[in-house]
């Protein structure tokens, strides 16, 4: 006897999802099937765990683990908000060409633009250090991922978390609670394994509670049109988004050191 389900469309559907690769959907798109994504995720995951500075690998891991339902969820968060919709419609990009960093440096103190430029200078990064999205199969979701990535430096600026590993991890947790992008959660859970016990303790007792609480209760940061709020006061924007500034990590470290 033939198995009852052998012929059903449901099964065919699952098969095609697992093995079939779709045609390219946007410039730079590398179509991959489920199995290929699994390999990508495993490879980039293991490698980046030992080389956490390899941004390209972390980006690949982020895309390979971006489960479609979660990406659609984040896109829907944008579709539910007037500004989010405008961003999806206009698809702005943040690069050193679209943002005049030199001009931002001349902004008044405590404006979003000024703090952001200070942040870039302090950490020696530029908007162009972000890799383009390649492995996400839906064009709009790919843009959402791109947008998240390009806005990441603004998240640093608005939270005031430093780019050193602990700040990065705390921000990842904040981002996970705020966006549910799997990669941010993976980063927040796995990266502390490489930290010293004292650093881990600080993350666990001070920063994760802050990150989870603020990430979950703040308005979705993906809906901020950063290009349009550059001249706003940082604290005002923070209040509007519902973010409390975290305790300053570096000062806390100095404080601890002076206490020893």
């Amino acid at each position, binding site marked *: 006897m033939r198995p009852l*389900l052998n*012929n059903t*469309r*449901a099964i065919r559907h699952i098969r095609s999802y697992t093995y079939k690769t779709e045609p390219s959907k946007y410039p730079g798109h590398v179509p991959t099937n489920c199995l290929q994504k699994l390999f990508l995720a495993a490879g980039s995951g293991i490698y980046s765990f030992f080389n956490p500075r390899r941004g390209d690998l972390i980006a690949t891991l982020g895309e390979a683990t971006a489960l479609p339902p979660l990406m659609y969820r984040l896109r*829907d968060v944008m*579709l*539910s908000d007037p500004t989010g*919709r405008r961003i999806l419609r206009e698809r702005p990009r943040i690069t050193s060409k679209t943002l005049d960093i030199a001009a931002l440096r001349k902004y008044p103190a405590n404006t979003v633009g000024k703090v952001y430029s200070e942040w870039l200078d302090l950490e020696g990064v530029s908007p162009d250090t972000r890799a383009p999205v390649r492995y996400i199969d839906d064009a709009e979701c790919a843009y959402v991922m791109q947008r998240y990535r390009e806005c990441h430096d603004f998240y640093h600026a608005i939270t005031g978390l430093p780019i050193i590993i602990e700040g990065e991890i705390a921000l990842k947790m904040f981002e996970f609670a705020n966006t549910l992008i799997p990669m941010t959660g993976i980063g927040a859970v796995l990266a502390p394994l490489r930290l010293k016990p004292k650093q881990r303790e600080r993350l666990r007792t001070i920063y994760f509670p802050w990150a989870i609480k603020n990430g979950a209760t703040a308005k979705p940061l993906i809906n901020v049109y950063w290009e349009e709020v550059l001249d706003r006061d940082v604290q005002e924007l923070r209040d509007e988004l519902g973010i409390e500034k975290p305790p300053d990590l570096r000062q806390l470290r100095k404080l601890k050191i002076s206490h020893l």
Partner: protein
Amino acid sequence: MGSTTGRKFSDIQSDVYDVVIVGGGVSGLTLAAALKASPYTSALKVALIEGMSLAPATKWDPSPDQLSNRVSSITPASQAFLQKIGVWDYVYPERVRQYDDMRVWDGVSGARIQFDSFQLDAAGAPMAYMTENLNLQQALLESLAEAPGDNQVKIFDSTKVEQITNSTDQLDDVDLSSWPAVKLSNGSTLRARLLIGADGVNSPVRSYAGIESRGWDYGQHGLVATLTMEWDDRQDIAWQRFLPTGPIALLPMPGGKASLVWSTTPKLAAHLKSLDPKAFCTLVNAAFRLELADLNYLYTRSDPEEIEAEFEWRDGMLPMEDEGAKFPVRVVEVQENTRASFPLRMRHCDSYVAPRVALVGDAAHTTHPLAGQGLNLGQGDVASLMSVIERAVVRGADIGDEVVLQEYWAERYPANHVMLGVVDKLQKLYCTDSKPVVALRSAGLEVVASMDWIKKLIMKQATGI
């Protein structure tokens, strides 16, 4: 013979009837027409009371560009019955549109099912006939008017039933004390050997008979409207998408029109009714074509231009190949004054009969319109009750005898109960966007969609044949 008894009463007292039907909706009129069409019952003395004027139906002059918003899908079984009692011939055929293809999908997951009579080896057989309730009512009234003069159903329209009591009269040798006495707003009182409650969901006849009606309100309103499509889609397809707020259905009507039944929250129904007509059409299009997130966003907007622009942007991103296969042709216009909404509920009576009383149609049961069955269940009731009355007349039994009427209840209750139950479960299953429920129902739907024999079974139930 029962008819002799009937004549006897009519000779003696003018307000004593064999059958008094309360309610001139489709169910009541169909019963009246069926009684007059059957050689066994045509001589019975019948009265029909309707609270509203029936003039809009008798004087109905269908103009091609105006379509009433009260429209029903008539199943082949109901159509066959109307044909049998000679009513279908009076239906304006140009105001009827058949469909033979039905596309239903899950608004959350996108899982789809298609019922296509060609695919299901019933090529060309219609699944249903769409027509205005008015078209049926006028056909029923027309056929009633054809009966011989002395044998006509006495129709009291614009006349309300004010009170129903037990008669205390004695008429010759017949004891009328168990007969219902129906007091009308025109002052007269009719006595009925058999009183029919075809008086809708708030049935006064049911209250008189002390029959308990159970059920619940769906907390949804059914918004209806008459729409004009961008062009007349030659495919005859009925479309239905299940949104978490309730299903939205678009049913083809003649001349490139369509009838909308949008079940949704009372708040949204009120908003949709008050919306600018153009924007309303855009929202209907969005409800069939766009993602839920888009739709939920558009619900919060009221500027027509903004709604239009947002819709065009998202609609432009849909794949070309889905046109005409996954969604209906676009709606371009809503006919003025056709947006109306009704609270949706489920009700089922414990019994349809009491001594000298029988309930038919919405008086006995009310269902959610998602399966387009409400009116058809009433037609089924009438067909069943008719055969019970015919048999009683042939046997010379009293048609008001509860034992006789029990047969009707025994036949109809289980069938209606199953249909009401299935519709109720479907409504509950689809009015959620809970992830596990959506996953399960979508997997289930895909399995059903891939098995023709199940689809045939479902079609059989839904068409009543």
